[in-house]
């Protein structure tokens, strides 16, 4: 497998607080990564630096061999944990925005997903419940045809039935060329699809590796390993 994302000596500071400290990681093509850690561990910051919404204090990031720039954004689909969609737009307007802004966007595909997860395209974003906004964000992110997908808490606020649908869509969207990085507090629900895991603790890399190897090494499920690392 080839590397699609390489992070070298990455540090990000806010005021005097260190959000990420000397992170070194590489992500391979075709794998699903779990980005684990409690609130404030640096998961969201790491994703935002990779997509270019935040600028790192030091260190470098290469996406498919290219240093971060506005061009590398074309190869990354990011779903932020916040509701970032234009409030006064209808769902169909947001879909049109993605269609206009991303040449790799698959309109038919997103409309099918929205139908499957019961999101009405005539609804206005401001009128959607947080669960529906969550579903819409996942559908939009997964409907792009890129090499890297970063989903920040994709199951947050989503009902139990829809969680299964979303995990199912992620598995179906995945192939040998696409890399997924998923951050989630719901370790038990994401564990079954993860190839590798990365544990962040207070901005530092605590543990990372192949999910199966970690299970065998520690004799614990990823969920229990999570509890062990952060206890």
């Amino acid at each position: 497998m080839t590397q699609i994302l390489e992070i070298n000596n990455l540090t990000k500071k806010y005021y005097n607080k260190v959000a990420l400290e000397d992170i070194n990681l590489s992500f391979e093509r075709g794998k699903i990564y779990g980005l684990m850690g409690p609130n404030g561990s640096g998961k969201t910051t790491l994703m935002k630096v990779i997509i270019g919404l935040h600028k790192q204090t030091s260190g470098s990031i290469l996406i498919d061999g290219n240093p971060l720039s506005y061009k590398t954004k074309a190869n990354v689909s990011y779903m932020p944990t916040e509701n970032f969609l234009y409030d006064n737009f209808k769902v169909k307007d947001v879909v049109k925005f993605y269609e206009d802004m991303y040449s790799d966007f698959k309109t038919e595909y997103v409309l099918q997903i929205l139908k499957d997860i019961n999101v009405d395209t005539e609804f206005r974003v401001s009128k959607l419940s947080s669960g529906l906004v969550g579903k819409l964000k996942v559908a939009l992110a997964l409907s792009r045809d890129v090499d890297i997908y970063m989903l920040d808490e994709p199951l947050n606020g989503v009902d139990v039935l829809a969680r299964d649908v979303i995990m199912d869509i992620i598995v179906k969207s995945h192939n040998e060329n696409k890399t997924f990085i998923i951050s989630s507090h719901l370790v038990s629900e994401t564990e079954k699809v993860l190839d590798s895991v990365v544990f962040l603790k207070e901005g530092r890399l605590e543990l990372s590796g192949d999910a199966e190897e970690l299970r065998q090494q520690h004799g614990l499920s990823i969920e229990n390993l999570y509890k062990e690392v952060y206890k």
Partner: protein
Amino acid sequence: MFKIIKYDFLKKYKLLLITIISSVLLNLFLVVKLGVSGSISFLAFFPMAMIFLYIGDIIKMYSDDLNKKSGYMLFMTSNSGYKIIVSKVVTAILEGLSILLLYMIFIIINSIYISTAQGFELNVNIAEVINAVNLVLSGNLGFNLGHVFVFLLTAFVVAINFILTAYTAITIRKSLFSEVKLGGFLSFVIFVGLNWATSFTTGKLTSVVSPYYDNVTNFGNIISATELVMILLPVVILSAIESVIMIIGSGYLLEKKINL
């Protein structure tokens, strides 16, 4: 670039629609209530109200993209910082021109109403009007329409310079000073500083380039229209150069240093 502009207008089309409808209703109300004086009052009041609303709206448009989470919609796309800043300025210019067009329509409609109400006969010939305006300007004021064109061009370029100064201040605050608290106040301080710097530079350089500049800064002196134009042309050129520098600076910061 066209797509960024399109979505900026789609985001605010309701606000623009409400502004147009309420302006029409206010005009009607004043005409019905006060007649000719109401119509004149509206024409005097409209630009004063609009200038505040317009400046507030174009600053909010850019500020929201850099300060609210909805800005991710734009900044996650693979558009360069330069394309984003230019698109925002073009949107602001188009919005300004739309308001100007709306005001022109009000002027025409209200002028027709006022003329009719006061018993004047309406027989408008555009060529004659232009000729008449030119005659009045050149006869009494020493101006011609060429001068007027330079004044309008100056106003246009200085307005773009003003918009870019505001946008550059917000960009500096969200990039170089993103970790400093009191963001809004800091943006204002940077804006005042930038405004002073651009005005000072333009004034100093114009006084060097144009021999007439010192005359106009002495309020007692009366200068001719041609002399004024000789002052304004360097102002236009310098403001344009400053605008290009601010576009390059903001574009670079948006691309390399931004923290949303």
